[in-house]
């Protein structure tokens, strides 16, 4: 059902057809606006300022996975010279909240306290210290005496709801603020069910049925900059939070609420951010640091160590997925039944929504009338899950991407053909869109752009799919090769929930300040938003001075998540720039004595279609501010969306497998992606390459290893194995152009998340091609692969 508001662009497009040939700045790989500042080391991150009398905060972590705090004595720590404040649960208001940086009302359960009298995982916060130096803070932490009553921990998600298991959230405050199926007494953080069609009928129509269990494992976002926040009081005694966040406006709202301040007393500044990947869509350390500033009236810095980042920030939610499907001989899918068990760890951050997305971003890809989705998220006494690039879809595609390969193989159809036959097409909808939303019903939408067929064809050619697939099926010898593929979709923003806004003003030199709440965390959104504004106004990108984000200065934006910035905030920028253009026409019409309707912009100037008379932006800017009818040309516009058009992608991988050691090496990876029109192709490629490599190391080497007490054993880059340049395989990104999204800004859809979802299934399928073994539980470390082959 086409909606009205979402099709603004479409209508405009009819009047002024925008094709790639007419675009000057959009679609160009312009240099990142913050690039040179970053490359010369002068761009400021959170930690790159000096504040007088700065105090250093440290957190006392829990040594136990599950324990009650019987007593806590901070007197010795408080007496240590240089210690300015020690906070325990006794010093803070007990306000249940969620750390998930989501819009209000959050669908995540309110089950967290700034500090609590109970600890729920190893690394959970027990107390906080602010001291004159980092060393003193560290010493002080050790002086806090805590008596625990150690409780039995829940360390296996598959047993979390069994009778007799300890209840992790037995506190009375634990609740959800919207009606959801929350059941903490059974360690259940969320439950969701959706059904379309008739499952029994679907399965009875199938010639083949498939049922297998798939797993997704813990992973760290591993942003190069760990979580960091500096808090201080401004000249009016307001709390200023300078933080590495993806969600500055949510930080303002949520911290204000937790510390019982009004939002007007809080300002959040997001400077340059050293990567987020979802990990910073979390209001995690801002509250405790703010509490220390409010207590000491001094600036306080809290900077997570790498080990804290692994253990005490957020992770990818592990899942167990039981996937059952029915398929006819001809390849028609008759039924899909997906049953998800998700581990949210000690707190339910994103517990419902990540699980929902495992269904909503995966199931609509394949045409099928009979679809059932069930998800249950459970608490355990392990590190906490959160938003992580891919957001549930990564987990879901492990199951779906491998099982589709199984289906195609069984019916004797090439898997590329199988996808082409079964994937959702333009003009079609999926009942799943409506059935599964984010904490409420979803939004029905029809696909208006889809280049997946071309992704599959071009990707297959790039990897030489058909010849290799067949050749690799029958190999002997110690080194074997294999190819595997998977098709993917994601979404672009959360429909009817997310809002983005931009404001803009014109300066006397014909430049423009563009203020956005949208949060560039390294993704390049400042740049692509500037490109869109430049396109509307026909000025060089350098004339758009972008600033993001500061809750005192920039308009609201939900923040950088859910693949929303380009699609959603981009549209807000276009609307704003169009309004600015209209105001420029007003002034120009007066100056040129022409009719507004006859004017158009070109090369930083306004021209009359009729007379050819023209005037530069510089003249207009100067005139509007100083000469006559003085006023500020400025505008603020917002945008919401009723759609979340999916980008599509096909990933192909070629691997080499050492039969003797089980080591899998990726030789070549091809990601063909259709993201509508890429506003900045180079940045879109960069998003893809980064996501792909993250996906590859997630598939092969990244994992959390725990001991029997729930302690993480590998919380450092030494033993948590990420890929470095020397591990880099050949990665080829192919942007498939020619499928502009009618509802997207200049035809754009999202690009940042989809790319991380392909590696695990594609590599698993390639391993199958190489040795005939199906691996359904990543990571595929040498030992896992070797053991599986020799079972």
């Amino acid at each position, binding site marked *: 059902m086409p909606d009205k508001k979402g099709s603004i662009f479409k209508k405009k497009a009819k009047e002024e057809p925008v094709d790639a040939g007419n675009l000057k700045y959009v679609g160009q790989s312009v240099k990142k606006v913050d690039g040179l500042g*970053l490359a010369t080391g002068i761009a400021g991150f959170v930690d790159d300022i000096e504040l007088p009398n700065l105090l250093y905060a440290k957190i006392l972590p829990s040594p136990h996975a599950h324990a009650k705090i019987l007593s806590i004595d901070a007197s010795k720590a408080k007496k240590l010279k240089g210690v300015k404040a020690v906070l325990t649960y006794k010093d803070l208001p007990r306000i249940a909240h969620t750390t998930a940086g989501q819009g209000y009302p959050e669908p995540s359960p309110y089950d967290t306290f700034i500090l609590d009298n109970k600890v729920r995982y190893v690394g959970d916060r027990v107390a906080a210290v602010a001291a004159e130096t980092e060393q003193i803070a560290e010493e002080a932490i050790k002086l806090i005496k805590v008596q625990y009553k150690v409780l039995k921990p829940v360390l296996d998600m598959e047993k979390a709801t069994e009778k007799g298991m300890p209840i992790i959230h037995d506190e009375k405050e634990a609740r959800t603020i919207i009606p959801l199926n929350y059941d903490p007494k059974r360690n259940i953080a969320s439950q969701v069910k959706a059904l379309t069609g008739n499952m029994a009928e679907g399965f009875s129509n199938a010639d083949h049925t498939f049922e297998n269990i798939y797993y997704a494992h813990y992973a760290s976002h591993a942003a190069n900059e760990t979580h960091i926040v500096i808090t201080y009081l401004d000249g009016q005694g307001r709390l200023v939070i300078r933080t590495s966040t993806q969600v500055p406006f949510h930080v303002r709202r949520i911290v204000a609420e937790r510390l019982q301040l009004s939002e007007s007393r809080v300002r959040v500044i997001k400077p340059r951010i050293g990567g987020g990947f979802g990990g910073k869509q979390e209001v995690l350390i801002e509250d405790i640091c703010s509490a220390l500033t409010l207590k000491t009236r001094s600036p306080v810095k809290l900077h997570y160590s790498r080990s804290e980042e692994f253990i005490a920030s957020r992770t990818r939610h592990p899942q167990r997925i039981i996937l059952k499907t029915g398929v006819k001989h001809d390849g028609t899918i008759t039924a899909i039944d997906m049953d998800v068990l998700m581990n949210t760890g000690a707190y339910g951050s994103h517990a419902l929504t990540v699980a929902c997305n495992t269904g909503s971003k995966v199931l609509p890809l394949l045409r099928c009338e009979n679809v059932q989705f069930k998800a249950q998220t459970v608490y355990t006494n392990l590190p906490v899950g959160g938003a992580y690039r891919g957001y549930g879809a990564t987990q879901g595609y492990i199951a779906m991407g491998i099982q589709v390969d199984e289906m195609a193989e069984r019916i004797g159809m090439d898997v590329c053909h199988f996808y082409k036959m079964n994937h959702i097409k333009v003009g079609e909808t999926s009942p799943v869109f409506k059935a599964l939303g984010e904490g409420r019903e979803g939004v029905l939408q029809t696909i208006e752009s889809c280049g997946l067929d071309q992704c599959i064809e071009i990707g297959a050619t790039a990897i030489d799919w058909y010849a290799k697939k067949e050749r690799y099926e029958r190999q002997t010898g110690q080194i074997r090769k294999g190819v595997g593929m998977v098709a993917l979709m994601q979404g672009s923003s959360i429909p009817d929930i997310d809002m983005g806004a931009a404001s803009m003003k014109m300066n006397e030199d014909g430049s423009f300040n563009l203020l956005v709440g949208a949060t560039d965390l390294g*993704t390049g959104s400042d740049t692509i938003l500037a490109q869109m504004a430049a396109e509307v106004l026909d000025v060089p990108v350098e004339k758009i001075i972008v600033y993001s984000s500061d809750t005192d200065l920039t308009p609201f934006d939900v923040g950088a998540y859910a693949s929303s910035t380009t699609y959603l905030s981009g549209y807000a920028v276009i609307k704003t720039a169009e309004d600015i253009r209209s105001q420029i026409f007003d002034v120009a019409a007066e100056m040129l004595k022409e009719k507004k309707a006859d004017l158009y912009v070109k090369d930083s100037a306004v021209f009359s279609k009729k007379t050819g008379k023209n005037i530069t932006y510089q003249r207009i800017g100067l005139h509007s501010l100083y000469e006559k009818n003085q006023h500020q040309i400025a505008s603020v516009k917002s945008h919401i969306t009723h759609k979340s058009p999916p980008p599509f992608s096909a990933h192909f991988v070629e691997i080499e497998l050492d039969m003797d050691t089980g080591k899998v090496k990726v030789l070549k990876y091809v990601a063909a992606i259709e993201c509508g029109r890429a506003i900045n192709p180079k940045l879109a490629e960069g998003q893809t390459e980064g996501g792909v490599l993250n996906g590859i190391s997630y598939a092969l080497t990244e994992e959390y290893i725990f001991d029997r007490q729930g302690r993480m054993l590998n919380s450092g880059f030494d033993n948590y194995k990420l890929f470095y340049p020397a591990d880099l395989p050949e990665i080829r990104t192919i942007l498939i152009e020619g499928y502009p999204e009618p509802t997207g800004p200049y035809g754009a859809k999202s690009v940042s998340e989809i790319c991380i979802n392909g590696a695990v299934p594609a590599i698993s399928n390639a391993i199958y091609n190489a040795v005939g073994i199906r691996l359904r539980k990543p990571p595929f470390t040498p030992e896992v692969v070797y053991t599986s082959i020799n079972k």
Partner: protein
Amino acid sequence: MIIKLIINNEEKEFTIKPGDILLDVLRREGYKGVKKGCGTGECGACAVLLNGRAVNSCLVLAAEADNSRIVTIEGIGTTEKPDPLQESFVEAGAVQCGYCTPGMIISAKALLNKKKDPTDTEIKKALDGNYCRCTGYVKIIDAVRMAVKKMKNK
């Protein structure tokens, strides 16, 4: 104790403690382009040139650096006069969040000071301790190649 350093061609004198780490001293003295990513020598964000060698400054005792020549990212080039490597990183799309970029450029600089025309394997090996989550390294390797070309044409 007092140490003397030549940082970015400027003579400097700092009062330090024997247990101070070079990374902390450099940041304290205003060289904020030197980043802290792990503090254990495993990410390369804090890389500087120490007597011409690229090293993790988080693993260098400040006292040990006494009388050394140090180049930080601030000494490689500026926004007005960027080094070809810095230009290339921007042009190639090798900068995303930019947190690893100073260290990457330092490692690449050390390589190009020694080798005018490195192979891809040599580039990857020279950057083997520089971690980046954003880019997948593809465009970082491109950028080094691009800088090689730029420097040849100069």
